[in-house]
């Protein structure tokens, strides 16, 4: 089996579980091995889980508006931990209030993220992207 492993979870102090469950379920259905860390996940937890499971990508959600703060430094911590090349994807309501998404995307890409998704993105989109990134 050449199953790809994805670590996912809701970052920071966010307890929004519905989208997280939907996402994890959809990823499993799409044939990925999913390590779902659930809600209220610290940056370190993503990294530990990715190391432990030899993960192929990390998918970070945030729905309470503080995602930009919570995601800062994640790429650097990954690098330090030896996850230099691991794809980092982020989506949800990443910032407080309505903001131009292109601006948000630019900031997240600059922070080292591989893909960034606006609110209301269909799950299929992230799955298609993961398949592309991971050459499945």
């Amino acid at each position: 089996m050449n199953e790809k492993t994805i670590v996912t979870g809701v970052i920071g102090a966010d307890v929004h579980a519905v989208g997280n469950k939907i996402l994890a379920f959809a990823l499993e259905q799409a044939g990925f091995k999913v390590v779902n860390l659930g809600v209220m996940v610290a940056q370190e937890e993503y990294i530990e889980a990715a190391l432990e499971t030899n993960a192929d990508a990390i998918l970070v959600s945030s729905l309470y508006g503080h995602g930009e703060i919570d995601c800062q430094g994640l790429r650097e911590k990954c690098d330090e931990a030896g996850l230099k090349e691991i794809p980092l994807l982020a989506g949800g309501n990443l910032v407080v209030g309505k903001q131009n998404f292109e601006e948000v995307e630019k900031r997240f890409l600059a922070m080292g993220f591989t893909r960034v998704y606006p609110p209301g993105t269909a799950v299929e989109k992230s799955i298609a992207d993961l398949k592309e990134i991971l050459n499945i």
Partner: protein
Amino acid sequence: MEISNKKLSTDAFFAERKEVLGHWHTGKGVDFDEAVAYQRSIPREKRFGLKLAQAAEQNVTLIQPRAGVALYEEHIELLRFLESEGEADLLPTTVDSYTRLNRYNEAETGIEKSKETGRSMLNGFPIVNYGVDICRKVTSSLQNPVQVRHGTPDARLLTEISIAGGFTSYEGGGISYNIPYSKNHSLEKTIAHWQYTDRLVGLYEEAGVSINREPFGPLTGTLISPCISNSVAIIESLLAATQGVKDITVGYGQCGNLIQDVAAIRSLNILTREYLDKFGFNDVRVTTVFHQWMGGFPQDEAKAFGVISWGAAAAVLAKATKVIVKTPHEAMGVPTKEANAAGLRASKQLVSMLKDQDFRSIPAVVAESEIIMKEMRCILEKVEELGKGDFAVGTVAAFEAGVLDVPFAPSRYNAGKVMPARDNVGAVRFLETGNMPFTQDLIDFHRQKLEERARYEKRAVSFQMVIDDVYAIGKGFLVGRPK
């Protein structure tokens, strides 16, 4: 940690109590005998359980908002506004998030900052920090009974201060305030914490003071099949009754299909009574609460009024004893007091206008509630079996085995194998039953209901339906249809 569903011994309770009252300095202000005397001095019309019993007898549905702010004078003003301008029959005091996590230092900072800035920097009323006397100021300033509503896994000190502070009803439970609210709290621990709360209520009962207890019905509030939330409500009722609680309000969160919603309340009412009686709790009073739509709300206030009104209508047609009311600001976060009162008045209009209509005996409702009861019996009998007759032990084992499984719950103690989806008329069914102990005919029933939808939508039954259902309400629909 070991738990069992036995009444806590007086010694064990008071030993624990000593520690609990030391969690924060306001614990010192609680004197049980003095509190009993104070509670006895509260006029009958301000006792939560009595008002509910009267409503149940008259077959009317009472309305209750959610509300809580950081500063107590403003909190009193807010609640007064909701009873005068909102025509609320029952009042709440919603507790802030810091208190729910027992972070009293941070709540203190919240109070200070609120005083400085003149506006509430907490999303609720910090009962523990204020202590008994200020709670009494609140509860005695109002015309109607007041309940504490929160979401606290370890609510022991909060309960002590609340009851001594003159509140006559208390929401929560060891399952319903853990699984949907917490990631890491073990069920053993929270059930034990809530045995303490229930034992305390039992001690007040034994001293002649009846405090209403309300397990939290809606759980995660998203696509919760009635059999799951009803089963949890009954287990929490049994656990509470074991500790001496005598007045229980069991709850359910609106799914949106009227037949299923009425059937949910009907089956909840019937089986709660049956199970309490079965275990000898014939003297426990049972009433019901219907929560208006707990899912995503329209941003638009007029549309929100539509959702609120439909919730009130379903509650009264189901003859729920009370309905918990949303506000037209629901989608935007904390509502103004005017918006809160407006949601109440829209609801009041419907509970008045429809009070003589009763949908409980409609054949479709009866049929649907027979199914819910069958499912509940499967679950509850398995829980009893797993616990060898002990519902506390059985509950822990049942969550571990996925016999009890709350969709979309954040808790790591929840299996998360069950997946709900709406059928063709919007009733919540199971796409995946996980390890829920259903009979084959029930599993077939759910499958057939989803197949019916699939045929109508010209697609296969699949997880995509769940995704579509979760996103549907944002577009104004119950059932997520393919584009």
